[in-house]
């Protein structure tokens, strides 16, 4: 592998691969954050997570159409508006779903899995009926495409940087919300002991609904961001679900820090292996590795040891 390349080549490749790994990391983390809140903190298995992401993507698509038709002057910044809208729309749908469905199922986690799978089928068909079976192309403002040219062989994609920045921002927000605000305390209290939290005056239903909504909203933002690197179609959401769950579970479901660590390790492993092996084999090996480690360490990488 190393033969035939000059040191300059190797250096720049190393830099590029590192960047590829990092951008994969931010993609994984962005996918997983919403789920980490919903699954890790609330214990709800949301199989429709991918569909919430695609909802964000469709919102972005609609926004792009709207701005180019009515506000062409502001087209350059439409993406920022779209992301906010994606958060709001996906979050609102999430809250509706929580109210109609999830709140009746907190004691039956495996049932939430089935019900949300049903929801994902319904959403897929709804997308297909509304937007057509074909994929839609989401156009990006010119400044977001392209790359900064650092040297002869090193190009840093701008949208990659954008996704990274977004990931950092959202992660920071989530952490601030969960660990620095009274809201986060309430969420954690409800997660640990629903009855007790209710008894001390926390409106658990409200906490649940908003937490679920925020998780879905983050999924929506992720979906919106992914229009820069992936496809938007009725079934595109399904592509993400296995990866997303593995990231969350691998990290130790209850630990947000674990989610970050696991997104990092899985993405680095994958992008390194992809470089040395064919794409298919790399994927298989990474998944096998994750499953293998989970078998040895079922609680995931990070886990709080509790006294039983």
């Amino acid at each position, binding site marked *: 592998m190393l033969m035939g390349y000059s040191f300059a080549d190797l250096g720049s490749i190393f830099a*590029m691969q590192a960047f590829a790994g990092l951008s994969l990391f931010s993609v994984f983390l962005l996918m997983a954050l919403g789920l980490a809140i919903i699954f890790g903190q609330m214990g709800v298995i949301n199989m429709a997570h991918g569909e919430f992401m695609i909802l964000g993507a469709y919102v972005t698509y609609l926004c792009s159409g709207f701005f180019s038709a009515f506000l062409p002057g502001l087209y350059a910044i439409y993406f920022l508006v779209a992301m906010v809208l994606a958060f709001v729309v996906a979050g609102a749908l999430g809250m509706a779903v929580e109210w109609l469905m999830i709140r009746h199922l907190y004691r039956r986690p495996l049932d939430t899995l089935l019900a949300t799978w049903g929801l994902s089928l319904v959403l897929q068909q709804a997308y297909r009926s509304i937007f057509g079976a074909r994929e839609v192309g989401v156009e990006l403002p010119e400044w977001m495409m392209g790359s900064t040219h650092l040297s002869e062989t090193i*190009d840093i994609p701008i949208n990659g940087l954008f996704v990274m920045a977004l990931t950092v921002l959202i992660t920071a927000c989530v952490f601030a919300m969960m660990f620095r605000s009274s809201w986060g305390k309430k969420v954690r209290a409800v997660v640990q002991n629903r009855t007790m939290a209710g008894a001390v005056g926390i409106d658990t239903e409200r906490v649940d609904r908003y937490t679920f909504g925020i998780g879905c909203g983050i999924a929506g933002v992720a979906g919106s961001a992914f229009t820069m690197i992936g*496809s938007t179609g009725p079934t595109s959401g399904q592509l993400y679900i296995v990866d997303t769950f593995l990231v969350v579970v691998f990290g130790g479901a209850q630990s947000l820090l674990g989610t970050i660590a696991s997104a990092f390790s899985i993405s680095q492993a994958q992008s390194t292996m992809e470089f040395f092996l064919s794409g298919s084999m790399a994927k298989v090996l990474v998944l096998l590795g994750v499953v293998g480690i989970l078998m040895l360490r079922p609680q995931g990488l990070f886990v709080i040891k509790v006294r039983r």
Partner: protein
Amino acid sequence: MSAGDFSSDRPSALRRKLLFGMAAVPGLALLPRAVAAAAPAASVNSTGLAVTDSTVTVGILHSITGTMAISETGSVEAEKLAIAQINEQGGVLGRKIQVIQEDGASDWPTFAEKSKKLLVNDKVAAVFGCWTSASRKAVLPVFEQYNGMLYYPTFYEGLEQSKNVIYTGQEATQQILAGLDWVMKEKGAKTFYLLGSDYIWPRTSNKIARKHIEMHGLTVAGEEYFPLGNTEFNSVINKIKLKKPDVIYMSVVGGSNVAFYKQLKAAGIDLNKQTLMTISVTEDEILGIGGENIAGAYACMKYFQSLDNPNNKAFVPAFKKMWGEKAVIGDVTQAAYLGPWLWKLTVEKAGSFDIDKVAAASPGIEFKGAPEGYVRIHENHHLWSKSRVGRARADGQYDLVYETPDLMEPNPFPKGYQ
């Protein structure tokens, strides 16, 4: 070079009518109709197909739900258009075509089940359908066992030939070889990097491409496959940057394409400088990819929506009239459009709907109204067709840059490439 140079200039065919195709074959169309008006069902249908004195029933079998619906929608639309046009002209042997549409649901066993239903229960005279190789492989034994007729529209890997199937798309050598020759000659390409989705069509296509490249003493710098639905291509793009191949040769399918081209562009690879040739991205896929992300790439297939010939100039507006101004037409969609027409022509030549007679009459059937120009059915049930190279524009269309002077012979079992 303009695509118009290649078209024949028959002025009459410029008229924008639904009935454009028949202008080219008036004799064929009129004569059997006169016959059919007198012919009772029994005489044109000796095997109990769903044919009455005024109607004939056919099946359409594509995925309209599930992951493949993305690709197959265009085929359904084209087939329905062709059938509507044929009916408007008086149908087949004087009988209006009725359609039973079934959903394969992107699931191969479902395709088998539905094809059996169409043949055994509905007794359809022909089926227009399937898209992926897997669905075709699943239904093939059914068509052979129950003696049905399938018109299969997709470009595919070859290695197959059946009495019961007419392949209206190109088999691999037809699609690949001319394009490779062109890129070698025109671009002086010496090294190639082959990328594909991990299943039979890309692997077989790349196998043929590799043999052809190596036969010319040139180099394959890399060959890689990605799971279907893969959306991460940054690592391989880095490898491409490192190896600097003259040509990136692509057979990645589905949503992965969107991810690939967006990431390629973001990585600063300019397709106006880096030659990329795809055999899997039609105008349909560009809708999802976004024209600005793929502009400059070359595609190698037999049909582009922008083809400048009278047939196509009637076909495209007709398609848009039926399915909306925004509709786009890709290679497979056009090939799907050929199916009902070829079937009509064959039935009328055979003077019967009987499958055996239709199968026997198929070789030699020519369709002069084909949007791609002209096609003829070969003895092996594939089509003689031209191979074309187009260059993607930012608006999602291709500019024709090359087409083979002659029709290419279909060769599903190519010697020396296996």
